[in-house]
């Protein structure tokens, strides 16, 4: 009996014959999607941890800077009342009053402590600046306002993300 050509063709089609290009492509796409999803969630977790750490650096530096500015007396011992450093006060270590810090800034890579030493690595990617301006706070229960100065400390990282601290210092009453 002669072989039935149609049945023969059907059997040929039914035989395992390897993957077609389309099947391989679909398989690859599914695999890539799975790997990318897992990879994405890992990266997101790490990114979150890193951004939390960077935020901690900014907050520490902004608090440290505010503290060293506020350590200085409100009134200049030499009587200088203009905001900004007095004559001869070329570095922050020579500042002797709160408003000497007005306009002061340090750029990334050149940050120092108030003891004069370079700050360690994690802070050196940040830059900081200070402004000191006359300000007043009105206190309703006292029926008036208190004169003083507002210190603003800004710390900025390489991506332009900032941490800002503002402190009001009242003028001494004497």
């Amino acid at each position: 009996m002669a072989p039935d050509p149609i049945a023969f063709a059907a059997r040929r089609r039914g035989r395992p014959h390897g993957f077609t290009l389309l099947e391989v492509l679909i398989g690859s796409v599914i695999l890539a999607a799975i790997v990318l999803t897992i990879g994405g969630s890992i990266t997101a977790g790490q990114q979150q941890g890193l951004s939390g750490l960077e935020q901690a650096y900014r907050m520490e530096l902004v608090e440290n800077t505010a503290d060293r500015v506020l350590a200085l007396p409100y009134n200049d011992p030499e009587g200088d009342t203009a905001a900004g450093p007095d004559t001869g006060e070329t570095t922050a270590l020579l500042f002797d009053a709160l408003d000497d810090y007005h306009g002061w800034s340090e750029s990334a890579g050149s940050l120092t402590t108030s003891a004069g030493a370079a700050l360690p690595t994690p802070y050196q990617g940040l830059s900081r600046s200070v402004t000191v301006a006359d300000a007043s706070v009105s206190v309703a229960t006292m029926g008036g306002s208190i004169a003083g100065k507002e210190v603003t400390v800004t710390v900025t990282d390489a991506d332009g993300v900032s941490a800002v601290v503002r402190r009001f210092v009242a003028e001494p009453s004497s």
Partner: protein
Amino acid sequence: MRRPSPCRRGLTLVELLLASAGAALVAAAALAVLGVAQYGEEDAHDYRTLVASRKAAHARLTASLRECRQVLAFGADYMVLWRSDLDGDDTPDLLELRRLSYDAAADTITLYDADPSATDVSYALTDNFQTVTDGLITAGTMTGRTWVTEVDAFTPTLDDATAADAAVVVLTLRITPGAFDDWLVVESRLRTDEGSS
């Protein structure tokens, strides 16, 4: 006799080996992906631990310094502070002393204060407060609390060469929580204006 059809024959050894190798490859790849996922999760956890440790260390050290008015003595691994002139006698007294000590062997910073029930003793500003506080700690008059842990370097500095004139304390430390080690700087002002009134 009927010849077995090619469709019904079993797998040859080579085919079986190839299939096993393929399956093993897929399994290895899946394990690798899981391993990376676990590593990433541990890494993120280490970051969170570091952030929490930094925040705690910074807040605790700032709090312990900011309420003090003067540095009485300091060295490579300690700092003695005059908290406040509570009795207004212009001299530091036992109950007004505070000491931060770094223990390099235990990797901790300990905060020592005098027991409030102790009999107050008056000291002169010229006393050697390292020796004084060493004696008080040995005698158990000043008791310590572990203040910061996992510290493997500690350097106290001041903004003035004369300790008594310092207005800002700068503590530089390296903390090692989890897999990281990282530098931390605490710069805190003292209440130098307290004595003027």
